[in-house]
């Protein structure tokens, strides 16, 4: 294949993000094309069907399934309250009467003359779909939802947990290599999207929850600390539904890894700005990465040139002079500049023969790394 390196995550000072927002089942769309929205605007709503409960009436009354309708007090589509009888028998002696109460408040969905079961459905639950971004509606999908677009700065992380969140960007450290210690997270950070440096430990994560951060963006987390936060070990990299009190976005990976300077500087330049973010990650097919989206609003200091540069940096191959981050031991997390791209595969210490690149690290050391083990840093 032409490119064996891992394409870098997007870090763009100015770009356009469009999000397709659709309901899980058909409903009502509340916005029209061209309308400005904020992240918390409800753009569509629907009623999710309620849970279904079953009651085996024939077993409870000791009757045959085909007789069930004779004993039913309620019919299909009738409303019922919890505890209200849905069926009863008719014994000769009245005080021997048995009634079957409904376990829920809802409606009778169906009655089976084969199995003797009665299906009861809870009332529907309303679901509101938010815009997620400050922007405007660019496309409407009747009964489904809409696409919302915004001109923004964008930072993609490598891995996250927790769902969508909105807050103001705040910086907790001065340098991307700093560790985010608990004392750096203060009560003034409540509701913010707080940016740390290279690492946040177990105590820092606990503090983030106590303070009530909206989200935390940091270079890395040690896996045992993430496990402690989640209360379980994460097996498969499909996230977004976790409920830990805040959204966590790791920009670099597991372990202590300085946040890429470009990412850090961009976020620092946005301190005080309102942003939307999501921790949802899916590494398999249909890759989803966590993200921080900071709409530019009207007072953007960036020029259109920046946008073109960002677009050009995405998807190009490796070339001499490019900056890369090494994403595997023994040089994990180090940043270097490509000085050679030998065409022929080289022998690794593992005895595998693969295509490599040669890079010069910050301290002048020259190393050879498999091309699969680097990430292009977009400059």
């Amino acid at each position, binding site marked *: 294949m032409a490119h064996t390196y891992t394409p870098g995550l997007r870090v763009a000072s100015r770009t356009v993000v469009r999000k397709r927002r659709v309901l899980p089942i058909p409903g009502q769309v509340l916005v029209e094309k061209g309308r400005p929205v904020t992240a918390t605007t409800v753009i569509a709503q629907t009623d999710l069907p309620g849970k279904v409960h079953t009651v085996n009436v024939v077993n409870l009354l000791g009757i045959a399934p085909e007789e069930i309708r004779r004993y039913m007090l309620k019919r299909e589509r009738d409303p019922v309250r919890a505890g209200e009888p849905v069926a009863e028998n008719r014994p000769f002696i009245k005080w021997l009467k048995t009634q079957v109460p409904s376990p829920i408040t809802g409606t009778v969905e169906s009655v089976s003359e084969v199995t003797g079961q009665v299906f009861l459905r809870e009332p529907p639950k309303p679901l509101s779909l938010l815009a997620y971004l400050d922007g405007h509606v660019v496309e409407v999908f009747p009964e489904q939802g809409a696409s919302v677009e915004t001109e923004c700065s964008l930072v993609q992380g490598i891995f996250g947990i927790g769902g969508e969140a909105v807050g103001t960007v705040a910086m907790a450290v001065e340098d991307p290599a700093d560790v985010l210690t608990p004392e750096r997270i203060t009560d003034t950070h409540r509701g913010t999207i707080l940016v740390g440096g290279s690492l946040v430990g177990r105590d820092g994560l606990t503090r983030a929850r106590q303070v009530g951060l909206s989200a935390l963006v940091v270079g890395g987390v040690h896996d045992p600390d993430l496990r402690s936060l989640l209360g379980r070990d994460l097996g498969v*990299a499909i996230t977004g539904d976790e409920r830990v009190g805040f959204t966590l976005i790791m920009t670099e990976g*597991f372990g202590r890894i300085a946040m890429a300077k470009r990412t850090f500087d961009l976020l620092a330049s946005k301190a005080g700005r309102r942003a939307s973010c999501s921790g949802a990650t899916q590494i398999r097919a249909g890759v989803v990465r966590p993200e921080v989206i900071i709409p530019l609003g009207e007072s953007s200091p960036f020029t259109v040139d920046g946008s073109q540069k960002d677009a050009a940096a995405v998807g190009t191959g490796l070339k001499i002079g490019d900056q890369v981050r090494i994403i595997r031991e023994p040089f994990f997390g180090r940043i270097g500049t490509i000085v050679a791209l030998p065409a022929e595969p080289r022998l690794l210490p*593992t005895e595998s023969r693969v295509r490599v690149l040669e890079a010069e690290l910050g301290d002048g050391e020259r190393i050879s790394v498999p091309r699969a083990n680097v990430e292009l840093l977009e400059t």
Partner: protein
Amino acid sequence: MIASTSGEMRAILATDCGSTTTKAILIERVRGEYRQTFRGEAPTTVEAPFEDVTRGVLNAIQEVEELSGRTILEGEKILTPADEGRGVDLYVSTSSAGGGLQMVVGGVVMAMTAESAQRCALGAGAIVMDVLASNDGRAGHEKIERIRHLRPDMILLSGGTDGGTVSHVVELAEYIRAADPKPRLGGGYRLPLIFAGNRDARGRVEEILGDRTALVMTENIRPVLERENLVPARTKIHDLFLEHVMAQAPGYAVLIGWTGAPIMPTPAAVGLIMEKAARQQGLSLLGVDIGGATTDVFSVVDGQFTRTVSANLGMSYSISNVLVEAGLEQIQRWVPVALDEQDLRDRIKNKMIRPTTIPQTQESLALEQAVAREALRLAFEQHRMLAVGLKGVQQERTIGDVFEQEETGKSLIDLYRIDLIIGSGGILSHAPRRVQSMMMLIDAYQPLGLTRLAVDSIFMMPHLGVLSQVNERAATEVFLKDCLVPLGSCLAAEGEGEPGEPCFAYSLRFPDGRREEGQLRFGQLLRLDLTPGAEADLEAEPSKGFDLGSGRGSAVAAKAAGGVVGLILDARGRPLRLLDDPTARAAQLRAWSAAVDLYPINSIP
């Protein structure tokens, strides 16, 4: 449709559209026999921004064109028939893109019809998302809630022998109706549902599900308790996979028009070639395909084929789940260096989030191979639970059976009777040393007696499986000549003893007349050269407490097949136990490594 039926095929093109990569191979007739000659690959393009599988297929074919010099494409059309230097006679393809075929199955009794339905769906190449049964321990509303949340590609509903229970089957149908599940690939079509249960329940099932699903009726998969009848339902699964699932996936409607045989789910094709090869060679075999996300295990024992898939055991996307399921200690036990928990966990998680990276150091390689041993072991355990005889079967007994109570549902996997183990997947096919692949398989499966081992050279089993439907000769010729790399044989003793205690004595006569004999003590491992294609006469006599296949202390004689690794004599005992003390265990692992030349000397600190 690209298929030429006139005379012998000269060139065949096959692709496998995987989740991440589309792999194309070219098979040509070379001096009267079929050989795999060139291979190309390109990223799969089912997802955005392309959303058209044919882009990736064309890119992979272009790579084959560049490497072979053969013109295969004219624009976006595959040239046919084959001529000198251009075109192919047949094009076939498999697919697991977009997560493969995902199914929910149901039956009345978990250990009977539900288990048969599970075997049927797995055998058809599906990932089984859930197994519903009247006695699965969940209340009705829990079943309904579960069905509601799953978005399968299709449902297989069985239950009841013909003439047996109707009400329990109808109950399951009612749960499905109440849940009203939606198909995974969008709401534009109705969810396919195959009913393969009690034929007396068909009318009721039609009434309940006919207006909610794309309902298809087929023969009962368990017409009587004593017999499984999986083929008709499996065929229906393949038909619906093409008609409904594939037709919804981006670009597949076009791809279906190019192929000369129906597109098969990748694991179904792998199973098919293994089944055919086992039948042709008269072997009982065990096969594994360990991928990034899933591990498939196949067995063909006495002609009975079983496939299982461990959906979350793999070497990249699912590597962290291997850690979760196996536990840290089980992985650490295979690593000959001390890694602290935080470091090991961080490394495994980083592989999960950056799945395309490769080990650069021996230490890193050893860790990945340690995880692979556990993934293979766990997937095999799951396979053994499903590769069983039919449960609930009445057994005819004579007075002679009184003292031999044999339970129903007995495992079909008797490791003494497995002739061949085939490994496939990146970690096995691309290990820097072939002996590493062989030892991963031996450590994970712990074969007993004499067993041959092989690996798939470049993962072409899917291609050959789908090809075998159209041209079995070409498929099996390539399978034996180019696909399988013979690793060699392993002779292993069952039993446990004290270190240093005699385990078995052996004597070998090589094809050149050379003889070699010796004795292995408990805990020892020995590797002897025996080249591919060569066979040696092997005689071995175990000590009293050990068994090589003929009973404890009884001698065995067999022909040992060679391979690129040779012959491994394994006196480490079964079950294989590693020492508890970390320092002693590291020394034990180093000694075994040195005995078989597993890693370069002194490469691991």
